[in-house]
């Protein structure tokens, strides 16, 4: 557990970066500091490993005040990941990862072994091991940065905008992998971001800071969306927070999934018309995984891959109402496609049914995921 007790950072010129911050980052959970630029979120993070010294107050790691610890010892206990990864350009990937293990006093051979194992853990092929940082993409560098922080097996991790320097597609991928990794390793993590969506997606707990370094609210993402403490938090969380809140409402309990007729590619349009509910027919592959919709009103002859309308998104059965709603909204037939964990078709939901489910969930005071 990381505890901030009345921590203040005031610079010599009088500006206050962090103002009397008190909060707890629970063990094994992800706590996110989020806020506009100048809110002191990075300063707060860097005070934990004392890259910046607090002016007053104290920070405790598992009950021990950091100011009493040896600086190097303190930092070696804490994994540190930063925006542009900050890899060492003169070392190859494996050597880079091994540095933290070496700092902890692990023998070179053993450290390189740990590094190679971590390489796979963060989703990089072993062949990357002897490449140099300049030969990697931004996303790959960031994976190596995470692996390097993990190589000393620290109890705590500090991450300063770790995913903001990569493009949205890679960012999404890194976020998903990070959540999967954290389920395995269960570190106590504090992450800084300016992106509220990232905060809500990754955080077990989100601390919203406002300009001047004042803590505006610290709460679970769900609580933040449904019950913002003041207008600043409400504004920062965003205008479409009502829609976003659906991310935290489970769909499975409240939704009736209908059977959806399907055909395979190559079926004659005339034969498809016989089974179809209306002008739209869903096409699946041999494993019963949905491929796309076909508009039978504009179709003659066998259904080909080029005839598929791919605009619909898929929602999983145990997903949130937000995803189910999106599937229904985006399907050309108006029926959202529901799949199971293996992407095998489970059925479909009508937009009107989703809206009804949202209405009843709201009336019941939102059930579903914590």
């Amino acid at each position, binding site marked *: 557990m990381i505890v901030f007790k009345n921590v203040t950072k005031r610079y010599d010129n009088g500006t206050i970066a962090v103002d009397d911050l008190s909060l707890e980052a629970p063990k094994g959970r992800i706590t996110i500091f989020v806020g506009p630029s100048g809110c002191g979120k990075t300063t707060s993070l860097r005070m934990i*490993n004392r*890259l910046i010294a607090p002016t007053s107050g104290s920070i405790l790691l598992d009950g021990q005040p950091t100011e009493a610890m040896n600086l190097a010892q303190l930092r070696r206990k804490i994994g540190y990941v930063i925006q542009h*990864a*900050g*890899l*060492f350009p003169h070392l190859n990937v494996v050597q880079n990862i091994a540095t933290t293990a070496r700092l902890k006093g692990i023998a070179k051979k053993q450290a390189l072994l740990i590094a190679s194992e971590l390489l796979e853990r963060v989703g990089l092929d072993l062949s990357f091991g002897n490449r140099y940082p300049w030969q990697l993409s931004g996303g790959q560098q960031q994976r190596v*940065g995470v692996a*390097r922080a993990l190589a000393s097996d620290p109890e705590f991790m500090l991450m300063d905008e770790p995913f903001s320097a990569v493009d949205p597609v890679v960012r999404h991928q890194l976020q998903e992998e990070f959540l999967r990794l954290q389920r395995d390793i269960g570190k106590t993590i504090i992450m800084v971001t300016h992106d509220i969506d990232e905060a809500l997606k990754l955080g077990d707990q989100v601390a919203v800071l406002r300009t001047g370094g004042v803590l505006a609210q610290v709460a679970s993402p769900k609580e933040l969306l449904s019950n913002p403490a003041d207008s600043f938090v409400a504004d920062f969380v965003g205008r479409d927070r009502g829609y976003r809140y659906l991310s935290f409402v489970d769909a499975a309990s409240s939704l009736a999934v209908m059977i959806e007729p399907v055909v395979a590619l190559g079926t004659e349009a005339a034969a498809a018309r016989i089974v179809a509910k209306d002008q739209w027919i869903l096409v699946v592959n041999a494993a019963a995984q949905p491929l796309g919709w076909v508009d039978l009103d504009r179709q003659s002859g066998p259904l080909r891959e080029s005839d598929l309308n791919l605009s619909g998104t898929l929602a999983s059965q145990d997903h949130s109402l937000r995803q189910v709603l999106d599937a229904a909204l985006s399907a050309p037939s108006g029926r959202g496609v529901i799949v199971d964990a293996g992407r095998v078709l489970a059925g479909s939901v009508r937009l009107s049914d989703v809206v009804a489910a949202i209405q009843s969930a709201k009336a019941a005071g939102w059930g579903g995921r914590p």
Partner: protein
Amino acid sequence: MIPWFTDPQHWNGSDAIGLLIGQHLIYSAAALAIALLIGFPIGLYVGHTRRGVVIVAGTANALRSLPSLGLIVMLVILFGPVFKSDLAYLVPCLIVLVLLAVPPIMTNTYAGIAAVDPASVDAARGMGYSPLGVLLHVELPCALPLIFSGIRSAALQVISTATIAAYVSLGGLGRLIIDGLAQRDYYEMVAGAILVGLLTLAVDLAIALASRLALSRGLVR
């Protein structure tokens, strides 16, 4: 030209080509070593702490504008009464060669350290390297390409200027040029010029090779 080089007279005695090359290299190496002892630590300190940047840049500029020939003759006259024997010439020459070699070594070391990606330095500090550890394990290795190029230009300037040593009656390849001029022996002058040119080329190549071997492949693309 070829007869001059094949004349055995030029390979023996007090003006033997081998001896002159040896003297030239010894003056240059000594000056370079002293300049490294002075310029390298200052460059490291200024690069790491960012303190004294203005002083270092100003000193380097001022030293560059000093005319080396003027400095040597001035020091020879000043030191004449102080030292006996050849030291009266050697010390002034070494001082001037060191003054020439310090600025490129000092400024390149400083610039190399200052150019290290701040993110790498931040990461190193954050993961628990001591300040000395950051300098030795991150900043210095990353600055090596620029440091090497500083040593290279210092070495070339020193070898080039060491030819002047002959003018104040020291050895080295400048001997051939100065003596040739005095005796109106143009062949000897040209031979000296060619040999100095070849020597700088060889040293240049040697340093390029050494830096290729010493630098991480992560730094040279």
